[in-house]
């Protein structure tokens, strides 16, 4: 009655921390800590234990209505079941990819899916250009159309080793290994020790790691 387990079992999408810890670089205690964070994010607008797109945008931008191509793609990748919301298990599993100890292959694959805007299994030239334009739109950097074309062409030709007008996952992996800084944003250093970096929401964690 009212014990921790029975209470959490009623939350839709809740998964056993031990299962999530086994599937990610996080410890059980860290998964419990992430649940505290998840509860905060998932109740910021709708108190239903799920992260909606508006809540996702609110957390990232402090603005529920600020939409962005990259944020949309990250939301879509976190939403593994593709049902329009992020459940706790999806949140932890996806965040695990950003852990410093996550396999680099997982980071490379996640980044590929992130940039494969139309989920065709390839990164097309027009997708690369669309992302460059989105980046320029959000920054103060102003480049002429000609310069943008040269940047996109050079990068694309360098990555598309087969020269078939599309970057497949194999070419992508080879290109990233040549330029590892391309996936620098796939690692969040502070995920390595959540309990030190974020003691405020770890305080309520109820499971002790031995």
């Amino acid at each position: 009655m009212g014990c921790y387990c029975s209470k959490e079992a009623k939350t839709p999408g809740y998964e056993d921390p031990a299962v999530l810890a086994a599937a990610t670089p996080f410890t059980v205690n860290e998964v419990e800590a992430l649940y505290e964070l998840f509860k905060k994010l998932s109740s910021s607008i709708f108190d239903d234990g799920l992260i909606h797109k508006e809540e996702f945008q609110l957390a990232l931008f402090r603005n529920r209505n600020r939409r962005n191509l990259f944020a949309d793609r990250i939301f879509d990748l976190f939403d593994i079941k593709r049902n329009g919301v992020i459940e706790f298990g999806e949140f932890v599993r996806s965040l695990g990819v950003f852990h410093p100890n996550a396999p680099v292959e997982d980071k490379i694959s996640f980044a590929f899916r992130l940039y494969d805007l139309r989920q065709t299994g390839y990164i097309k030239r027009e997708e690369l250009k669309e992302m460059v334009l989105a980046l320029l739109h959000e920054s103060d950097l102003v480049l002429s159309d000609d310069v943008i074309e040269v940047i996109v062409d050079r990068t694309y030709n360098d990555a598309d080793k087969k020269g078939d007008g599309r970057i497949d996952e194999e070419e992508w992996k080879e290109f990233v290994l040549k330029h590892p800084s391309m996936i620098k944003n796939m690692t969040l250093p502070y995920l390595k020790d959540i309990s030190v970096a974020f003691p405020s929401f770890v305080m309520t964690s109820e499971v002790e790691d031995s």
Partner: protein
Amino acid sequence: RSPDAQHPYTHINAFQLIGMSSCLDLSGFFEK
């Protein structure tokens, strides 16, 4: 060839440029 081809930014890796997007930074999740 266009003089823009000599622009210093033309040697930037487009994916590195994209990776600089603040919208790809998930730090916001962890801010109070």
